[in-house]
């Protein structure tokens, strides 16, 4: 009954309001109202999806990310300030604290002016690197918009990105082209697993500082796919940080513009659609996974649920129920393409690593399951599901159980072991022989007496 009610309320809410899975308080940090008007379609779209958008200037005294030690907003959208920095209430430390408390951030950069050094050092903490002078712009002499940047070649026209890898779900794909004017590019640390590029620049693109004229080869930050236009970072607590290289792409004028590549047709941009996908992902409307229930038990019927102790060589079943949030509702999670959801049964190192198979599907979730025999090793083991993929929030489920040895009365009895029959036979023959000997000894005594008498 309660379940039905909850579902009903959920449906009702979904019908009225699409809502992020982690709250609706969105703070847009921008300089003034004049700037705000440039993005009116974006604000309207966000509000239509259920966000309470508040606007603050970075210089404002009112601006505070925390109130009484708690987050005052759920999401933060930072547009590049014209002035040098973001002010005293948006220092890198504040922003990182905001992330550490599960706040999501969408940071837009612009190639029009130099990026402030405080943003640069913030990005450096996240292993996202800007060029040394922080004023590079991406140019591409093959994929540029001939209508608006015939000379400078700095309005990129690119396809929407497909899946990053075959085993990663695509959240930003679709038909149509994007127009990205004056992108401030960045590169990603080569070994950071928390970072993932959303949109890489085309193979022919490179970046340079337009104010310094023709670049020397060694000044180039990066080229081709190493140069990122839009990137995402998910912290270990799944707080999201998105960097968008070109803030202008969100402006009203680019939402409805038409572009033409050097050897292509005139086509309308899909910037508005992409902005929706990007903000939806950044503010946790998509790609959010939730573990509803974890169950483990013995494979026998009517076994106790989630016991804290198992025995070695027990047949064990593990079930995990996972939902995925898509815009406004929880849906059953499906493991993308080539990927597998895996269960580890581990003590210091995994003793089992098994693929979990979907066995059951409810309206909002999928139940994955695996069955295995606990190893012949006692100790403190964990059922561990560690599913961390680009663009999905992390699943890290760790359930500690004890695996004990055989108790003294759980071994097979001696007569049940055929190999032991020899020994059992030996044992009883010795006992029997001894008894027989005693009997013979006792009853043979009188004979000796007779012999003695005859002697």
């Amino acid at each position: 009954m309660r379940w039905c009610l909850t579902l009903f309320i959920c449906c009702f809410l979904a019908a009225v309001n699409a809502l992020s899975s982690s709250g609706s308080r969105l703070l847009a940090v921008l300089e003034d109202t004049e700037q705000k008007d440039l993005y009116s379609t974006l604000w309207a779209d966000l509000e239509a999806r259920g966000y309470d958008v508040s606007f603050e200037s970075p210089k404002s005294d009112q601006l505070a990310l925390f109130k009484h030690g708690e987050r005052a907003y759920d999401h933060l959208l930072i547009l590049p300030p014209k002035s040098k920095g973001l002010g005293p209430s948006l220092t890198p430390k504040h922003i990182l604290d905001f992330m550490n408390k599960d706040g999501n951030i969408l940071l837009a950069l612009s190639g029009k002016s130099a990026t402030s050094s405080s943003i640069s050092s913030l990005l450096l903490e996240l292993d996202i690197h800007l060029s040394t002078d922080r004023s590079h712009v991406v140019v591409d002499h093959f994929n540029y918009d001939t209508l608006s940047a015939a000379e400078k070649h700095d309005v990129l026209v690119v396809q929407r990105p497909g899946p990053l890898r075959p085993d990663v779900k695509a959240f930003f794909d679709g038909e149509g082209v994007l127009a990205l004017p004056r992108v401030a590019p960045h590169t990603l640390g080569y070994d950071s697993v928390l970072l993932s590029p959303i949109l890489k620049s085309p193979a022919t693109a490179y970046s340079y500082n337009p104010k310094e004229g023709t670049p020397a080869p060694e000044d180039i930050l990066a080229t081709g796919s190493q140069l990122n236009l839009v990137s995402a970072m998910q912290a270990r607590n799944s707080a999201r940080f998105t960097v968008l290289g070109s803030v202008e792409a969100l402006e009203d004028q680019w939402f409805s513009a038409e572009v033409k590549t050097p050897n292509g047709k005139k086509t309308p941009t899909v910037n508005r659609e992409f902005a929706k996908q990007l903000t939806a992902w950044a503010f946790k409307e998509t790609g959010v996974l939730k573990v509803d229930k974890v169950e483990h038990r013995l494979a026998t019927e009517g076994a106790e649920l989630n016991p804290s102790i198992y025995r070695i060589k027990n047949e064990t079943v593990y079930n995990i129920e996972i939902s995925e949030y898509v815009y406004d509702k929880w849906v059953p999670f499906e493991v993308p393409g080539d990927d597998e959801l895996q269960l580890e049964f581990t003590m210091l190192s995994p003793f089992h690593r098994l693929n979990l198979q979907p066995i059951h599907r409810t309206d909002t979730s999928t139940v994955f399951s695996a069955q295995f025999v606990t190893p012949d090793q006692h100790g403190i083991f964990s059922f561990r599901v560690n599913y961390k993929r680009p663009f999905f929030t992390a699943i890290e489920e760790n359930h500690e159980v004890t695996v004990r040895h055989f108790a003294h009365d759980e071994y097979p009895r001696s007569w049940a072991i055929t190999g032991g029959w020899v020994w059992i036979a030996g044992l009883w023959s010795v006992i029997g022989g001894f008894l027989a000997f005693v009997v013979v000894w006792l009853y043979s005594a009188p004979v000796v007496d007779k012999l003695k008498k005859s002697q």
Partner: protein
Amino acid sequence: MAPSSLNVMLKGSSGRSTRGLLRVIILCTIAAAAVSSRLFSVIRFESIIHEFDPWFNFRATKYLIENGFYSFWDWFDDRTWHPLGRVTGGTLYPGLMVTSGVIYHILRLLTIPVDIRNICVLLAPGFSGLTALAMYLLTSEMSTSPSAGLLAAAFMGITPGYISRSVAGSYDNEAIAIFLLVFTFYLWIKAVKNGSIMWGALTALFYGYMVSAWGGYVFITNLIPLHVFVLLCMGRYSNRVYISYTTWYALGTLGSMQIPFVGFLPIRNSDHMSALGVFGLIQLVAFAEFIRTYLPGKEFQKLLTSMILLTVGLGFGGLVLLSVSGVIAPWSGRFYSLWDTGYAKIHIPIIASVSEHQPTAWPAFFFDLNFLIWLFPAGVFMCFQKLKDEHVFVVIYAVLASYFAGVMVRLMLTLTPIVCVAAALALSSILDSFLVASTPSSSSEAKEKPTAEDKSLRSTRKPVVGIYSFFSKSVVVGSVIVYLLLFVAHCTWVTSNAYSSPSVVLASKLPDGSQYIIDDYREAYYWLRQNTPDNAKIMAWWDYGYQIGGMADRPTLVDNNTWNNTHIATVGKAMSSREEVSYPILRQHDVDYVLVVFGGLLGYSGDDLNKFLWMVRIAEGIWPDEVKERDFFTARGEYRVDEEATPAMKNSLMYKMSYHNFQSLFPPGQAMDRVRGTKVPKESPQLNTLEEAFTSENWIVRLYKVKDLDNLGRDHSSAVAFDKGLKRKRATKHKGPRVLRTE
């Protein structure tokens, strides 16, 4: 009136019962003295468990009482040796816990509700009273003198060598094991004397109890066969010896195999092979004796030599074959260290690191045994004079135990009983000679001789010479009384000052003479108990494992049951390596808190930095390439913790945890470590992967919480640097080719 009534009471049949009554009263008094002299610590401090090991025994006893015997038998302990766990039910000697559990249930049955803690605290003193009784019985078997047994009982009751392991609160296996040891020997002597199956079976029964109580049972396992072997070599084979030994060996071995921890060791372990060998030998000897009655001498000689050759050849070959093929386990390390005192230091640092396993210092013998130690050889000599079967036993025991006591401090405990026996024999014969023996002047022979030579000097006419003179009697008896009084005074003093201070609570004196209790351990353990989740894993050096398990009730990585050397070495490596090396180890073992003991503020010398070299050595034994003892010594070979400490020392986790923020207690540049007596560096060591969680009042116990991985994927040092407000430097340009990111 008075003398005549005394005569009535002391002579004749009523005299015998009077003496019996007196003896009972004296024994009860001795037992009471034995118990009460062990209560210093309870009266001075409180009724708690003291040392490290007893905390495990106490915890196991509580488990036994809460869950019953069968679940205790099958106990898998998931709160120690994380994440390996310990099959505790199968790897402990259950005798102690079962004994106190039985006492607890009997008292409950009698509707006397006693807290199990009090039973555990008072078990050792209670059993020491029984030990005194057993000692009386054993010594009475050795001597016809009635005073020998009483003296031995009194010695055993108060000698510090035994008190050291049986004061109230030291709830250790030895608490009941020494009683069992003495009583088993008494039964064995009884069995050999009587050649009775009953006494042999009783010996086996108590031997089984002993096996269930203490690993030192191996001493009995080897001593009894040795006794029999020596008797055989002396040509003293008799049916008495055969019956008692075979009964004991068959029943005792079966009994000992019932203890899961012992299991099949009696037939597979080298330590037990002598008992098996003597068992075989005595069968052969019995067979030879049997043959001898049927065969003429010459043929018997031939048969005997050929049989001996064949047996020795077969036995030796079989032993070598079984040892090589691994059926018989090789000698254990502890066994080797009994013969070569330097063995453990080189090969098994974990054994050498225990102070109990160090060779005994000479003064310790006098300290623990006082004047018994010089009466001891006299008593052994007197056994040589009589040299019946039981005296042979005393001689063998004395020789073996003296050797072992010299090798290991801890084995002083097994020497003490035989010293008491021998000393009591010697002292009682002195006292008997000087007190009881009366001048043989009344005899007629003595009277007639002097009459023949009546013309000699008057002074020599009635010679009151030697031991019959009152003077010599009074001098000897007086000095013996003085020695005895000094012995009592010494024992009381030693017990009070050396063996009654619990190591959990440290007592010190303030300048005005009042007592000041340093209670840091319990403070820290209670902090853990009340401020951490129930399954927070604590890493500490193994010395503190049992206490953390017992007092803080939190899972530990290693503890005093040192069954897994590699696991201990892992902890040693984590403590002695750089943070970057240690942190993955801590993460892999799910460590939540790290505990270190630091005595630098107070001058408490038993702290972890002083034990640190053992951690390094044990870790080096497993990872010789990663941890090197040499790195912790300066170029001049000094172990330093001040400015000139080696980089390996300064970067080790143990050093950092010990001195973290220590400098802030002192004016700048004057931080002083009172244990090592040196100044410590001005700058506090920088800890990145741990954060201080708790430090006790006198800084003895320090607890650190292991940080989680950085939320943003940075390494800890740069995260800490960022929090401190330092700006991150851009990675300097690589000289080589650019590293490209691939997805």
